[in-house]
């Protein structure tokens, strides 16, 4: 079959009481890509994911997984994906091996297949040495790894990850990124949610930014960055008395200037504007320091779209 979408979400809507938490969200995910749902805390990412994974009933809208309606063909749809929720969904009271065995059996593997898969996953996720220890003594990173391993028992081609690195230390976070990249290389399609822009930038092929339940922007990280326009120039004015003068001097040149204490930041349409700006400041005898020119980051896109609303 030609290019069937891994996921098609159309007009997904959910209300809790009077509050619309997910508001008419539609997007498509292609097979083999990493699709990022990016949004601040409370934006509705988890709720969206829970509806996509049949854990929560949508008020309106439809989710198709590889062409199958998740409501009409729930059991079939469920057999096609793995889910790692935002909060660890492994059993605290039993060991890593027991967790894997039990979930393998519940997934319909025979006892011997379950045993083999458990061993494989323990190896793959470097959990062999703590396989038989109680989870109570696991670090956050180990728990996350086990959680992900459990989601991968049936080698699903579609994997949902809800904030896979929230609460992890930087080293463990990088390990998780590597794991995700490895899965992609093996041909998996991944949907992940994150509050971290760098994570979305690092991992996602396509991004949807959601805020207050609404999908506010969609595209590749590069596209989204491009929309924000040129590079960002920042510097500090040495003498506080000159800050206002500097702002007045440059506003006609660059438009809006953001000021925090003595630091000014502005957008450049072209890099050679920099020359003009420096000359103007020099002529006005305004001394500056800590000059920096930055390529636009997803941070800027994100702030632009969500700032002030939360």
């Amino acid at each position, binding site marked *: 079959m030609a290019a069937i979408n891994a996921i098609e979400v159309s007009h997904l809507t959910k209300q809790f009481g009077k509050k619309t938490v997910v508001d008419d969200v539609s997007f498509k995910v292609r097979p083999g890509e990493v699709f990022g749902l990016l949004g601040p805390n409370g934006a509705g990412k988890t709720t969206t994911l829970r509806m996509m*994974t049949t854990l929560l009933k949508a008020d309106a809208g439809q989710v198709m997984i590889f062409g199958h309606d998740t409501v009409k063909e729930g059991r079939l749809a469920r057999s096609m994906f793995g*889910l790692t929720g935002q909060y660890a*969904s492994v059993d605290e*009271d039993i060991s890593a091996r*027991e967790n894997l065995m039990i979930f393998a059996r*519940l*997934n*319909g*593997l*025979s006892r011997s297949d379950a045993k083999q898969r458990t061993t494989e996953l323990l190896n793959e996720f470097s959990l062999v040495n703590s396989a038989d220890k109680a989870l109570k003594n696991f670090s956050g990173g180990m728990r996350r790894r086990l959680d992900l391993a459990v989601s991968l028992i049936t080698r699903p081609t579609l994997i949902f990850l809800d904030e896979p690195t929230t609460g992890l230390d930087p080293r463990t976070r990088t390990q998780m990124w590597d794991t995700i990249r490895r899965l992609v290389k093996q041909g998996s399609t991944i949907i992940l949610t994150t509050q971290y822009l760098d994570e979305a930038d690092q991992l996602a092929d396509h991004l949807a930014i959601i805020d207050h339940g609404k999908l506010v922007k969609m595209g590749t990280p590069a596209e989204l960055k491009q929309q924000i326009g040129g590079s960002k120039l920042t510097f500090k004015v040495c003498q506080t008395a000159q800050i206002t003068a500097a702002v007045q001097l440059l506003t006609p040149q660059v438009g809006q200037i953001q000021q925090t204490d003595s630091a000014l930041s502005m957008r450049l349409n072209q890099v050679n504007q920099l020359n003009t700006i420096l000359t103007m400041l020099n002529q006005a005898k305004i001394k500056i320091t800590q000059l920096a020119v930055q390529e636009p980051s997803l941070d800027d896109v994100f702030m632009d779209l969500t700032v002030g609303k939360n």
Partner: protein
Amino acid sequence: MDVQKHNGSLIMNTATMAYRNLLKTVHNPDRFMDVIVQPVMFMLMFGYLFGGAIAGGVQAYLPTIVPGILMQTMLSAASGSGPQIREDLDSGVFDRFKSLPMAHIAPLAGQLFADSLRLVIATITSLTTGYLMGWRPAVGFGWIIVIALLAIFTGWALSWLFALVGLLAKSASAVQSFSLIAMLVLSFMSNAFVPLHSLTKPLQVIAHLNPVTYVITAIRQILATGSWTHEAGLVLGVDVVIVLIFAPLAVWAYDRN
């Protein structure tokens, strides 16, 4: 390796879930402590404290109190199902269960099957303690097994009710307090520890309305007569009805969560 997937059957899923709950208990033996310590404590305390006052002696009191404490322990063990389920629901593990392509009733059924082990242990503890204190029922061992099974089945039926409460309640601590109060009221406002005629009139009315009274009466009758009585049949029938009503309700509440 090629992962062979066959549609997990309900029985297999339930067995796996029961295994999981047993494992949890094995790793956490304190889950058994309540059903072991409680009957022993109550049997000793009530027997030696009130035996003389109520029945004129420990030996004479044992035929009254052994069935009474057996049922109280069943209630207590059954009421453990509620908090346990609430805890599971809150922990995120149930999310994974629900996202698996397995029969929806399996996690509940697995829990309830594992819980019946608690009931069995509670029963053995209660009866053994009674025996060690000198309780010697006149009927044969076969009838002891019969009353044990009747008590266990009643406890199991009640655990569906408590499971429903657990599924509907907001928090584990709310379930816990409800369960404790239900256990205390149902066991003390009955004929578990004192003969009915010794109660004041209003308490007699309550005790007569209390289903626990009927179970205890049925058990005492079997132990006294060595035969299956009308009451016992009634209790068994009511147990079946409770399961038929509350099991589907619990599944419904589980799906709703």
